[in-house]
């Protein structure tokens, strides 16, 4: 009878363990039936061994034996808790070392640089089901990124269940995609990874893209025949030096080149970057009395010179010409401020 009980107990444990697998492979009903049989067999075990335990009062009275069993259970529980804690810490903080010759499982230097340069926390949201084949690949990729930077976090969401996020990021039902989000609330900006297999390059590009938002600069450049805004003592003979020096100070080679390109000496076109724009040259000669004073506002505007409107309609162009100078627009905080931004720069940095 005892042997039967032991065998039943063994099978009971086995049934209970495999019920978990059945839950996923087959249906929950089968798993519940299997688990129920397992519990029944375990009860048989306890039933057959209950009599044995109660039939030995000598053992029951043995205080040392009781203490041993209690201490064993306690030690096992405490050891298990320590084991879980140690594994949890290592899983969160553990760093991997790629020992392959070509470091094929390491992130590229460009990626590491991009991760190091993150200004704000960035969150990658994988919209995919756990059954998706891309899930594991993205999980592995995100882990490598998260390991290198504390500012990079990730999570997965089921597109069938996260309806609110679907609407927010314009995701179709069942669509598998990854959204990379920077910031929170109204300042949040996001971009999505291109469709295709998970790629370190795509994710790095997305990070660079998000990281560059909010850093667009507007430069006010002097055209010819205009007064530099810097104090008179700093102006160079060409009249172009203040803008160049200011731009150089801002470490913008592009803008510096551009400022040179629009100098009266060069006849080249404006630079290809669409985040900047060239001020239109006044058709009429600027009279001295209309030229602007160097106001604190203009100096605070950061800059070098004048700023035109970006979208000069015909009417505004006419108005523009009639004033004869752009300076008033640039120095006027109420009008110039919204107009400083181009259409492109005014658009949120999302690409969706």
């Amino acid at each position: 009878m005892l042997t039967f009980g032991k065998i039943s107990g063994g099978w009971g444990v086995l049934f209970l363990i495999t019920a978990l697998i059945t839950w996923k492979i087959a249906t929950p009903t089968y798993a519940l039936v299997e688990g129920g049989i397992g519990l029944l067999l375990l009860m048989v075990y306890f039933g057959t061994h209950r009599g044995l335990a109660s039939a030995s009062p000598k053992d029951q009275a043995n205080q040392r034996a009781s203490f041993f069993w209690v201490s064993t259970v306690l030690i096992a529980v405490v050891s298990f808790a320590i084991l879980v804690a140690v594994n949890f810490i290592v899983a969160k903080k553990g760093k991997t070392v790629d020992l392959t010759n070509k470091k094929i499982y390491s992130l590229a230097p460009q990626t590491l640089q991009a991760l190091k340069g993150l200004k704000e926390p960035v969150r990658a949201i994988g919209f995919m089901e756990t059954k998706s084949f891309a899930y594991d690949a993205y999980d592995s990729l995100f882990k490598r990124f998260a390991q290198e930077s504390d500012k990079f976090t990730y999570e997965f969401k089921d597109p069938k269940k996260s309806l609110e996020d679907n609407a927010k990021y314009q995701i179709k039902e069942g669509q598998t995609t990854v959204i990379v989000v920077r910031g929170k609330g109204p300042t949040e900006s996001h971009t999505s990874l291109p469709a295709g297999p998970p790629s370190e390059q795509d994710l790095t590009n997305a990070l660079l893209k998000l990281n560059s938002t909010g850093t667009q600069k507007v430069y006010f450049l002097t055209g010819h025949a205009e007064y530099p805004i810097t104090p008179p003592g700093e102006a160079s003979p060409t009249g172009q030096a203040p803008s160049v020096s200011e731009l150089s100070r801002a470490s913008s080679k592009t803008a510096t080149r551009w400022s040179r390109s629009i100098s009266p000496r060069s006849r080249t076109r404006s630079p290809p970057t669409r985040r900047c724009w060239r001020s239109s040259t006044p058709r009429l000669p600027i009279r001295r009395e209309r030229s602007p004073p160097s106001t604190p506002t203009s100096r605070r505007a950061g800059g070098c010179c004048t700023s035109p409107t970006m979208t000069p309609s015909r009417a505004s162009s006419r108005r523009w010409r009639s004033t004869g100078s752009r300076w008033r627009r640039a120095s006027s905080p109420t009008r110039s401020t919204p107009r400083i931004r181009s259409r492109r720069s005014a658009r949120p940095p999302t690409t969706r």
Partner: protein
Amino acid sequence: MRNVFAIARKELSLYFATPWAWLVLTAMAFFGSVSFVSVMDVFRQVQEYARAVTWARTGPELSQYKNLTDGVIVQLWGIQIIVTVFAGPILSMGLFSEEYRRKTFELLMTTPVRGIEIVLGKYLGGLGMVVTTLSVTLVYPVILTLFGASESGQALEWSTVLLGYGGVLLLGGTSVALCMFISSLTESQLVSVFTGIALLLVWLLVGSATRGLEEPLRSAVSYVTIDGQLQNLLKGVLDPKPIVFFGTAIAFFLMLTHRAVEAKRWT
């Protein structure tokens, strides 16, 4: 510590005095060789195909066959893991069960040796046997190094090979610790070996059941799977997670075995 090594030496010598160890060694050599030859054959076929159509036209699933390390050795680990899952319980089934059956356990407990020393000694004996069986398979990377050739100069990346061996050894050590605990609970070697293999197989297969689970359960279950733990080590990435995971699992099972052995004093 001297007692521990004395017990370990005695266990190892006992292994080689019985046919079990030789049977397991022969079986491992046989399965290893068959697998090695078949994997090499597949590698050769893929290489010939790639030479005919160029690597650029082959699919990404064949890219692992570009070198001997990924194309042969890493492929062999999958087979080696399955062999270890069976070899571990077979090698450790008699560690305590045999003592119970022969009624020599009482004799062992009356010797001036502490319980923990008995457990550690027997565990080291079992682990030594696993190391011996694994070392039989070292002949394959050696053959590849001697006779293989590569454009980069080295036929094999030995760092990847050794990390793979370390991973399989960790699994072997864990399987010995688990089955020694089961062995300490029963005097039937048959019950011990079948329970051990059943538990290890469930542990091995539970990884495939995680695909449909939701987070965070999926991550938690994936963490404890054999596949999930060993994947980094087998491909050549030194990862502290499997070392800690299998290390703590071994310590836990050794602790349970120690308590089970001590419990024999009270029953």
